[in-house]
């Protein structure tokens, strides 16, 4: 259940599946991750409007924001043992594409632009994407988004008008070079940890046990479970409250859950054609 769709196709080239463990109990809300991501991936500035929503002027993940730090001000003590005179706490959480084990965006992409990399991550290939936008509603987290950008002649990276879909690549290029993703590298307190997913899950379990023992209020893992509706996240979280508090769906489900059944029906109908094409292919090779 936990093997991500598509990863097995790499055979010998397949790498250990990697991901993020974002531990919000040490997040200081500095937004280094947002900037590191933008600097590395040359993402355009995303609007200069003030929201008044605590210190969050980013708002949400979008085509031009691949890391987003949420700020939640609460009248709730940090620890359940009564520590903290005001009972005030300020939660911060760096959100990102979840790189789902079962990723609906991948299923619905008609061009093969969205694909599973050899690292088990989900990436939009910009040389393929035609901006059809099928993936946008497919994502249960609202991560995928089309970039609507007028051309900026001064900036070589944005010289052309763009209507494609952009999102976190888990720094696919950096992974290929053996470097950790930019956000994880920058994170001053290692709230964002990068590594093999299995290892991260172990680390997260230990972390949760420690916080529980210390009496942290509401500590829970989110997206760690391979049996959840998307088969577990490649980028999962330790939260200090329910996911909704951070603006995350409490029980995300892969929107293409019923797709295999649909495929079966479709394949049956188109069976003859498929066989014919395959025969032609074999013939041409021999």
């Amino acid at each position, binding site marked *: 259940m936990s093997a991500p769709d598509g990863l097995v196709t790499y055979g010998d080239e397949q790498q250990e599946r990697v991901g993020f463990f974002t531990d919000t109990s040490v997040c200081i809300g500095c*937004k280094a991750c*947002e900037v590191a991501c933008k*600097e590395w991936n040359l993402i355009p500035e995303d609007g*200069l409007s003030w929201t*008044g929503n605590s210190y969050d002027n980013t708002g949400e993940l979008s085509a031009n924001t691949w890391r987003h730090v949420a700020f939640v001000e609460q009248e709730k003590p940090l620890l359940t043992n009564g520590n903290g005179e005001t009972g005030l706490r300020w939660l911060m959480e760096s959100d990102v594409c979840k790189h789902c084990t079962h990723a609906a965006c991948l299923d619905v992409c008609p061009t093969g632009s969205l694909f599973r990399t050899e690292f088990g991550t989900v990436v939009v290939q910009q040389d393929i994407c035609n901006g059809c936008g099928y993936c946008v509603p497919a994502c249960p987290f609202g991560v995928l988004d089309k970039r609507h950008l007028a051309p900026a002649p001064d900036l070589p990276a944005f010289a052309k008008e763009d209507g494609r879909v952009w999102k976190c690549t888990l720094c696919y290029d950096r992974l290929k070079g053996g470097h950790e993703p930019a956000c994880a590298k920058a994170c001053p307190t*290692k709230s964002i940890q990068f590594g093999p997913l299995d290892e991260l899950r172990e680390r997260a379990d230990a972390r949760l046990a420690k916080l529980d023992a210390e009496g942290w209020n509401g500590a829970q893992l989110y997206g760690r479970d391979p049996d959840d509706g998307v088969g577990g996240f490649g980028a999962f979280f330790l939260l200090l409250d329910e996911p909704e508090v951070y603006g995350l769906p409490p029980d995300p489900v892969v929107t293409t859950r019923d797709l295999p059944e649909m495929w079966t029906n479709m394949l049956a109908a188109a069976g003859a054609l498929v066989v014919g094409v395959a025969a032609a292919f074999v013939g041409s090779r021999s």
Partner: protein
Amino acid sequence: MPGLGTSFGRGGATTFQQDLQNSDCIVIMGSNMAENHPVGFQWVMEARERGAKVIHVDPRFTRTSAMATKHVGIRAGSDIAFLGGIANYILEHDLYFREYVAKYTNAPVIIDERFVDTEDADGLFSGWDPEAGRYDIESWRYEGMEVHGAAGQRGEGFEPRGEQSGHGAAGGGLHHGEPPVEDPELEHPRCVLQILKRHYRRYTPEFVAETCGCSVEDFVEVCQTLVENSGRERTSAFCYAVGWTQHTTGVQTIRSAAIVQQLLGNIGRPGGGIMALRGHASIQGSTDIPTLFNILPGYLPMPHTLSYSKLENFIDANTSPTGWWGNFEAYWVSLMKAYFGEHATVENDWLFDLLPRIDSDNSAYFTVQQMLAGNVKGYIIAGENPAVGHANGKAHRLGLAKLDWLVVRDIVEIESASFWYDSPEIESGELETEAIATEVFFLPAATHTEKDGSFTNTQRLLQWHWQAVEPKEDCRSELWFYFHLGRLIKQKLEDSEEERDTLIKALRWEYPTHSQIQEPAAEAVLQEVNGWEIESGKFLSGYPELKDDGSTLCGCWIYSGCFTDGVNQTARKKPHWEQESYVAPEWAWAWPANRRIIYNRASADPDGNPWSERKRYVWWDGDEGKWTGLDVPDFKEDKEPGYVPPEGSGAEDAIAGDHPFIMQADGRAWLYVAQGLEDGPLPTHYEPHESPFDNPLYSQRANPRRQQNKDLAEDPYNPVADEPGSEIYPYVVTTYRLTEHHTAGGMTRTVPYLAELQPEMFCEVHPDLAREVGLEHGGWATIYTSRSAIEARVLVTDRIRPLRMNGREVHQVGLPYHWGGRGLVTGDSANDLAHMALDPNVHIQEVKAFTCGIRPGRRPRGPELPRFVAELRDQAHSRREQDPRIEPEEARKT
């Protein structure tokens, strides 16, 4: 920083950031470390993960508070009351680290019988001269000792204050290593410990709660946590930043922490110390190698108009018979050789008579007043933005408009360069472009990637950065600008016969240049800073090698050793994983002598053994006959713990083997500072210059020695306390930075990825205040003082708590100060609201606590703005005039 310098001997952080991981308790106060030093904060988080308590004491609940195990909200400007309360708690319950205090501090020293404490004189120490508005410090001295320089020669005598005492000064004029009269039992009524006890007796938990607006329980919990985490087995650290310094009592606030840390025995030990968190890449460097009016490199004093008319007096007055300041003459002569080379000789007193002289205050705020008065003609600004970053920005902009010529060097066109066509005063009509005579040169600067050089970071560490690319077009480094400016001036004055040009003609100004643009070699300058033996050209390995006979040259004695063996030690980049301990001594170079924790002799007990295994750091190795450990010992390597200075010994030899504070004349940390501070030997709670409250302790309301500009029309003050008119400005305002921006914004409002993260000026207020005055979340507010009014978006938040004290509720208004009129994002400047009353020791402005009014809606535009401000001010001032209240320091004059 004289708060640290007078207490311990050196004006720098006593420890290094990585060592915070060893703390058992970290008190962050006067600092918002998670927001303003996020990467340094990883070490606080490391400590927290190991079980350390992290306490944040701050008017606001910030991102630091969110990470702390305990946050205590206090009123802005009440820090000395809080810290004094901790000292009282420790003393009252006999919880101080007795062996440490008795041996390593001046607790046993008996003070002159003429000394009178503020507790006995209604808020003034003895020696107050109401006419002069300053203290005669004669009565503060140690018993049985004369203040250095006979009384009759005071005009010529020794009174180091300000930044100069930021580096231990000459140590209180002790003629011998030991103060003459002491009580090792700490019981004599005039010994420092007993004076301290009496001084702080009224700082009870209840007093702290009333004055600071916190609860008694929270305060006591902080005291207990600190005490439980200090001693032989455990250590606690303090972290502070400009939340402490930017007050009219800033230096004394740091002194308060120094007293607490001495009482708890936390200085010079791993996990202990006072971490001064500085805000600019080289702010420590720019006081060590100063661009400050009153000191020369290495905290050597500038000659003064009122004293030091002869070299002999100057040397004599600044040389301490004991401690490392005993070698003052060697430091001085070596600097003069670096400045003037063969032109400086013993015969011409190393050109002493030609050196420029300073007055007691020629600081930036003095200069702006001189500008307003039309006395300053030319001004060069390099990497600073006074139009936004200085208190009372309007006064600075008006001042700039009175110059004949102005040079601004920056990487972007900052507000200080554009004031003549787009400042708020142009909009209001107070300035008119066509009427401004100032000639303005804007010269584009090079960035850190476009030049070689070293920054000195917050832990005294000199780190070299290499040039990566050539600066484009007209962009140049400051090194280039000042070198070529000096070269051109010298060239033009080459044939001058004027006496005034003798010094500039004598200036050594030969530096090799490279590349097409003739960039001077930064390493050549660093070599001069390090110094060499003139005859052999051999680089010095440290300041002990400096000579007073003119045979050595050294540009900054405390940096000597940074180019040992001809190797740029500051450029050492050995990865931490290849080094033996977390101290990582082979990464860059720290002053002094590459020591990372200073005064680390104090990490061992008087006999030289670690206080505990858990806290071992530097200790005496009896077999080897030397000090050893994880760090470079901050002590003469082979001086035994039992060393007793022989009669007649001087300088360093006069420091005993169990006295770790080697820059001080008596080798000890100073709980009580007999000499070196303008406003008292002990910290005392005073209200901020502008405060809604009277001083609960004394009729003396605010620091009597604070610098005010009462006659300056551009710097009017709000009525205070219960004065009529104060109700127009009833709230406490505090200014600060956000993670996403840097200071006056020139380096962040201009960067798209940062501008978008905090795009607009806002104010932070509690829901109760919002209700009280009708502010709407997300709407606009106008905040006003006697100086100006600004507008800001309203962020209503529970993180700014109202505080109850003296039966009154007081609201605080939080204002980030990053915005100005230019950049990708613009907004009003919080500093326009602030006044220019200053701390008397270091001339720092009080922008962390003053008073304001606030109302809903945007501010008036154009000429309506100054009218609006003036109307409120006139109203407030006329109410005051009908019922005049005279400040106590004024009343005493009559």
